[in-house]
């Protein structure tokens, strides 16, 4: 016979595990996600068609802690989070899909191809006289994708030591001004769709962060546990050890 599932006791190790191994890393990751989304930077990569720093919620929890994650989602004390996580992940999948659709459309749009060709030709001539401008024929193949990625991520200027910085910082205005309207590229709708799903994801992430902060506080107060593990007998400077559960 299966016993009744009781509510965890005070100072419960199980609840500690939920807070330290699930809520804390997810809250930290959501803060970073919102930081990026506020800037319009999806950290989306053309080669993987994925966002580098915005992930499904499950991926914010370390592999070794997945059993605690499953336990957290399965316990009635944490009702509603499974659905909220699923909604977040659906919104993220939508963002990645729209980003791919927009960038694919862009690199095949006639106006974009022509603009790219003209800018590259100008850059090639500059590279003849300025050794800091690196030009090789492979740029014709790689640069349109890199530019589409920068436009998806709304990157304004690249650090000077980046390989595409000289090109992007010189010709950015040409592409960037156009992306606001995108009419010439025929990609205005695709861009608007991307902006819409990006805003929807940010709204969900904001709400989820608020709910998770409130839930952490509730669990900590109800079960009288600290919100983060207290280091015992270690120097506070070793933060990496402190945060590891």
């Amino acid at each position: 016979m299966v016993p009744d599932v009781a509510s965890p006791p005070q100072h419960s190790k199980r609840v500690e595990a939920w807070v330290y191994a699930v809520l804390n890393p997810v809250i930290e990751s959501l803060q970073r996600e919102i930081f990026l989304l506020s800037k319009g930077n999806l950290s989306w990569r053309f080669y993987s068609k994925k966002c580098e720093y915005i992930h499904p919620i499950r991926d914010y929890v370390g592999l070794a802690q997945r059993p605690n994650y499953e336990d957290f989602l399965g316990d009635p004390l944490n009702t509603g989070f499974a659905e909220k996580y699923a909604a977040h992940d659906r919104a993220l999948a939508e963002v990645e899909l729209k980003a791919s659709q927009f960038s694919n459309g862009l690199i095949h749009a006639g106006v974009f191809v022509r603009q790219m060709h003209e800018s590259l030709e100008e850059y090639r001539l500059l590279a003849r006289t300025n050794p800091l401008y690196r030009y090789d024929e492979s740029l014709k193949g790689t640069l349109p994708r890199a530019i589409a990625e920068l436009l998806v991520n709304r990157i304004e200027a690249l650090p000077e030591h980046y390989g595409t910085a000289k090109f992007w910082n010189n010709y950015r205005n040409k592409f960037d001004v156009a992306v606001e309207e995108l009419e010439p590229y025929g990609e205005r709708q695709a861009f608007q769709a991307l902006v819409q799903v990006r805003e929807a994801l940010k709204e969900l992430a904001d709400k989820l962060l608020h709910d998770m902060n409130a839930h952490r506080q509730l669990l900590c107060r109800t079960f009288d546990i600290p919100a983060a593990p207290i280091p015992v007998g270690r120097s506070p400077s070793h933060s990496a050890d402190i945060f590891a559960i």
Partner: protein
Amino acid sequence: MILDTGPIREMVTFRAVAEYGFERLQEELHFITDPESYERSSQFIGSFRSKTTSASVVAELNYWIRRTEPAGLERLWNRVAEEFREMQMDEEVVRLVDMASAGELGLGMLAKLGSVDVSLMGLALRHARDGALLLTTDSPLCGECERAGLHVSHFQDVVLPRD
């Protein structure tokens, strides 16, 4: 330009903190303290046509990543790989047997500096004809390079504003 572990770590960390919100990595920054010093470093490194490092440096980065983000190894490795991709960084191998037998380097230098530093000196020798500069945060390595007549700069001098 040949990059040692220190400058790579600083450039990766600053970008991770400022651009991607990895606030906890802030304490890993020892030389780049503000956007201006990052900008100066970026301009200096960007003024070199090509960038390379040694495979031993990547092994040293592995040690740093494991110590710094035990719970986020994949995340930090990803950031380092992205930075290498963006910088179009080359990566070269300097074989131990070559380090141990090279006249300018040899076992004495290996014992004194270790294999990572000697591999970087090996790269500086390999690219000496092209006027390659080694950028490092390691003062003893700087001294040895200067004694060997190799071009070297301490990262501190790059980060500080010029009068």
